[in-house]
């Protein structure tokens, strides 16, 4: 039986929504606060944030495991507080913590499919597909707890893919996986997403999110600090590009002072990343203009630029920037009454 994907299921493009959503484990102690978010059909949405940023709580809220203590949310158009079996039957969840039954890997897969009401024959063939895809064939008779950490993670993802769903939540699914397996799993998830499956994906591995996600939300201190396509986020946060220039000889003290004066004219938008006697690395919004000025400065002093490279900031650089000092300022400004 072919998998049922989401494409023909929804009438609305928005499959989950958070409107000022929040959750406090104890009064006043919010794990997530003022969350505004819309998840679209067929979208891969990445939730990034440091440990304790609120990623798992967000997943628990959107999967109805936790009732919101503020704001409201919707899953498939229904209020999160009112969602029941019917809505949960349309989602899949790979938890951050391992969950397993005390039976063999293979039986875990078919038993899980049974719990979801997948017909026996379909479950059997899907189990074979998953065992092969996640390279668990040789472990099919072993108990999951006897597997290595990476194998157990693969098993978790494989098991969740035993049933049909419209929206899949993956809470750090690639922790402990080697690069090859990670690539394979992400490739598979990407194909499922292209076939219409919506995915919410939390991770610490930023280039994964960069590769897989259509949009990314960055959580800090339980609040969504930024949201957008990876490329937009990179531009928006430290939207400047990185430039690395290498000179054919070390600069003299006087030349160094001239260079300082030249760069100081760029104002605060210019950020020096590193400087050596014959090397300078900086970040600037108008990278091309600065490179041209630098070339003029060098040429006037008989210095040759032996290498110039210009690159976009990585998501990691945007992320680190956002969750570090820049965010503190933002947070302080927001929390000022």
């Amino acid at each position, binding site marked *: 039986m072919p998998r049922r994907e989401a494409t023909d299921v929804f009438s609305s493009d928005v499959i989950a929504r958070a409107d000022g959503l929040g959750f406090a484990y104890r009064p006043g102690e919010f794990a997530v606060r003022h969350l505004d978010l819309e998840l679209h059909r067929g979208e891969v949405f990445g939730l990034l944030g440091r440990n304790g940023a609120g990623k798992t709580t967000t997943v628990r809220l959107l999967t109805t495991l936790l009732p919101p203590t503020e704001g409201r949310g919707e899953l498939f158009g229904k209020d999160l507080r009112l969602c029941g079996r019917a809505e949960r039957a349309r989602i899949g969840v790979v938890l951050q913590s391992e969950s397993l039954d005390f039976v063999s890997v293979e039986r875990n897969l078919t*038993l899980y499919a049974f719990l979801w009401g997948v017909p026996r024959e379909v479950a059997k063939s899907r189990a074979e597909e998953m065992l092969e895809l996640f390279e668990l064939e040789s472990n099919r008779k072993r108990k999951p707890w006897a597997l290595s950490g990476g194998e157990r993670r693969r098993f978790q993802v494989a098991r969740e893919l035993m049933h049909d769903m419209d929206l899949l939540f993956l809470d750090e699914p690639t922790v402990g996986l080697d690069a090859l397996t990670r690539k394979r799993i992400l490739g598979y998830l990407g194909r499922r997403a292209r076939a219409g499956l919506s995915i919410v994906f939390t991770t610490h591995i930023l280039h994964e999110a960069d590769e897989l996600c259509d949009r990314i939300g960055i959580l800090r201190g339980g609040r969504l600090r930024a949201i957008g396509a990876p490329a937009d986020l990179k531009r928006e946060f430290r939207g400047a590009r990185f430039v690395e220039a290498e000179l054919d000889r070390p600069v003299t003290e006087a030349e160094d002072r001239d260079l300082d004066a030249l760069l100081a004219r760029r104002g605060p938008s210019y950020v020096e990343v590193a400087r050596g006697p014959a090397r300078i690395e900086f970040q600037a919004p108008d990278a091309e203009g600065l490179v041209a000025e630098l070339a003029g400065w060098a040429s006037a002093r008989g210095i040759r630029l032996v290498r110039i490279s210009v690159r976009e900031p990585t998501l990691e650089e945007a992320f680190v920037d956002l969750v570090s000092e820049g965010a503190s300022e933002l947070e302080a400004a927001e929390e000022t009454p």
Partner: protein
Amino acid sequence: MKLPGVVRLLVRNFESNLDLITLIVMFGQPAFLIVVLGTMFSQIVSGVGGTGSYTQFLVPGMVASQMITGAVLAGRIFWLDRRWSMVEQLFSGPFRRAEYLAALLLTTLTFALVGVGLMVLVALPLIGLPPLSPLELVSILGTIGIGSVFFGGLLIAIGARIRSANLYFTIQSLLQYFLVFISTVYYPVTSGTPVSLRAIVYANPLTYAANTVRDAFLGRGFGPGDAEAAVILGALALVTFTLAVLSFRKLEFGPIQ
């Protein structure tokens, strides 16, 4: 055809989290007591609680205590489900929390009934088949049913609040010993029983269950005392069931040790 959620969860409970050795020990222990304790004590005591032999007295008590065996097994499943995040996994799936709770209580009941059958089977060569009337059979099954809800609900409510495996299993063992030994499972309450101990014995729901099952086994029918016992047991079962439901509402997810 898709089976109802409770049935699917029940099937899973039987298949997962329980190993054969655990089952052998859980059911083997009372069977062992019937054979050894019954035989040995029958040689030195007679006419206990109006019965012909101590084994005749002991078997109904062991039958009644199967509710605790069932509850312990269901409590163990619940605890392991929490420990291995299966509660969280299942609650995010196509089940109501009430279905999960119902499946656990049905697991308690099923194991209790299996235990009852096994105890009767083990006792067969020693005391023969008890001549039960339909009313007595119903009173036994009803008592086991209500008692399973009481003990199952109690252990689930406790298991939902405790985040340490050591503490949970310690409390469970203590409770098991306390409930079985301070009841009429092994010995009757007589005029010589100290008042304080008698009060504790009658505060123990297992006492009512053991007395009702014993009355049925001894052909005493279902008297007013048994009806009173059923009401008390039913009320207590309602309390623990409510506690279990409330604890499910406030269940905390995340790692436990």
